[in-house]
């Protein structure tokens, strides 16, 4: 049963279509991420849910009520901004209590709720400080508390972590997710960072140029990208042009090298041009295990990335990256040496155009 539903949403600014026929149903308590590059329409979609933009066409319903054209201050959805947007003239406590005080709640009620929220974000010591006295991470926690204080039906997060340091980004991400689960609140999280989206979400909506590319769990999005855009945008990926050689057996030809794929290509004809993708971590150097694809290659370059080592290899005329986990006893091949790499047929994905 969907709690928040966006149906046939289209948004135009002048002649530019920013969001094109967007459809999504979100269940109560679900954490959904909108993932995509800047300009893909993810923030505009979020702002339509908040009421800062009104769709050119389409409907938004929340808990059965049509809120498409409701004023933002009548909606009861909480929003968190990339720039925190804390009111500089108010203390932490006053910021958190703002939504309640404009609702003319009683002083005692506001105080109790503010204390509760401050405890939730662990800023008890800072209740009477002004925003400028806090670090970025602390400010964003206050902003989270401020949005939650009004007990919103939906929590909207517009790239809330983008302005923060890498370390804080990861810890605050976990904190947001924990609080969201604890309160069971429905949340939409906008980000351009795939790792963030993968780690925090129940479901991800990948968007590109106003269109939904794919909707699915992080597992599905990562392992079974349906379009080239998703495959490229989520995780790092090798893609190559290929030709169907035997549709019935799943054989394709990449630059003169035969690969077998588990993807269904029976509907294609021999000689059809297609694109295949293989994630770098699905390759490994030839070992004793029997693999579907065993390929001769030349090592071209080796890049040390910390936890993984990325090795660029040339198979036929096509270049591929392969990732292998780093460990102190790893023996790396010499650049220029001939090797064999393997991958399973499930690793070779055929992409929709």
């Amino acid at each position, binding site marked *: 049963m969907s709690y928040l539903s966006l149906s046939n949403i289209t948004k135009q600014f002048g002649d530019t279509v920013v969001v094109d026929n967007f459809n999504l149903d979100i269940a109560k308590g679900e954490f959904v991420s909108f993932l995509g590059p800047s300009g893909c329409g993810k923030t505009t979609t979020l702002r339509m849910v908040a009421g800062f933009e*009104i769709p*050119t066409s389409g409907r938004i319903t929340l808990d059965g009520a049509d809120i498409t*054209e409701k*004023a933002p201050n009548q909606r009861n959805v909480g929003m968190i901004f990339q720039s925190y947007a804390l009111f500089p003239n108010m203390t932490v406590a006053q910021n958190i209590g703002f939504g309640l005080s404009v609702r003319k709640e009683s002083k005692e009620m506001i105080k109790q709720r503010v204390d509760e929220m401050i405890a939730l974000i662990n800023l008890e010591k800072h209740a009477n400080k002004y925003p400028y006295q806090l670090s970025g991470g602390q400010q964003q926690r206050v902003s989270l508390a401020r949005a939650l204080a009004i007990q919103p039906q939906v929590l909207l997060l517009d790239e809330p972590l983008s302005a923060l340091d890498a370390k804080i980004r990861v810890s605050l991400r976990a904190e947001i997710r924990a609080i969201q689960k604890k309160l069971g609140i429905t949340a939409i999280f906008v980000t351009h960072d795939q790792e963030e989206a993968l780690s925090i979400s129940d479901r991800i909506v990948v968007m590109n140029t106003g269109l939904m590319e794919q909707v699915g769990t992080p597992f599905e999005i990562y392992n079974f990208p349906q379009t080239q855009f998703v495959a490229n945008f989520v995780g790092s990926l090798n893609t190559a042009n290929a030709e169907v050689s035997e549709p019935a057996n799943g054989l394709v030809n990449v630059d003169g090298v035969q690969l077998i794929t588990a993807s269904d290509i029976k509907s294609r004809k021999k000689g059809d041009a297609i694109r295949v993708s293989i994630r770098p971590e699905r390759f490994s150097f030839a070992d004793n295990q029997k693999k579907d694809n065993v390929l001769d290659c030349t090592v071209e370059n080796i890049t040390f990335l910390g936890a993984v080592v990325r090795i660029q290899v040339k198979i036929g005329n096509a270049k591929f990256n392969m990732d292998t986990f780093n460990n102190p006893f790893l023996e790396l091949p010499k650049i220029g040496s001939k090797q064999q790499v393997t991958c399973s047929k499930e690793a070779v994905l055929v992409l929709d155009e």
Partner: protein
Amino acid sequence: MSFLSRLRRFPFWSWVWFIVGALYFILPLLATFEFSLTWDPAIPFKAYQRSFEDKDFWETFIYSNVLALATILFSILLIVPTAYWIRLRLPEARRIVEFITLMPFVVPAIILVFGMIRIYSAPFNVPFTDIQIMQPLTNFKAGTNVLIISGYMVLAMPYMYRSVDTGMRTVDIRTLTEAAQSLGANWFVIISRIILPNIRSALLSGALLTFAIVVGEVTLASFLGVDAFGPYLFLLGQHRAYEPAALSFVSFLLTWLAMGLIQLVSGGQGQAAGAH
């Protein structure tokens, strides 16, 4: 989008305030223009003709423009190096210099001019003797020019200093200077080819305001006895009716046009505040 939500976005009150203010701006100008045309219904621009035929008009008007240009030039020479030096080497002096540049707000023009007259109407002597080095500045033309330009520099100082300082802050002159130094530039090259071009629009806005302050200024010019455009208009206004109206209108229009042009040229960067 429904009609109601469109209506919610129409900035009704903004238009109201803007139009009220615009009327306040435009009506007096319009009335002045209208009045200047009523001298002789047969020759509508008679007031303008007569004004432009007057030799004194051209003399005072050009003189005021020259004074304005001189004020701008000397202000830049005084203020740019000072502001630059403070940003680069002497941040300790910032508070005191900022305080001084704000002083002209506290000391009105009329006070400044009487103070200057009191001091510089005395001859310059060798200390503790009666031997005169120079006659009083107020007694000869070059001397009064020094006084009035200095006075205008004081009046323009708050605006000039602020524009220049803001300009330097936005382009981060410290880094620019260090980059230029590391590439081997000397001080002259740094200031003339790096700093000045980069604070161009700030200089323009400061210069413009200085211009607007100086060209119609009356208090300093009349008490120092300088034949500038302000006192000329003042005198004209006591004897005539139509010519001053015509000249008021023209001078407003000219200044506005100049400002508009410069804002176009500088890409809309120029702005600051005005003075009396």
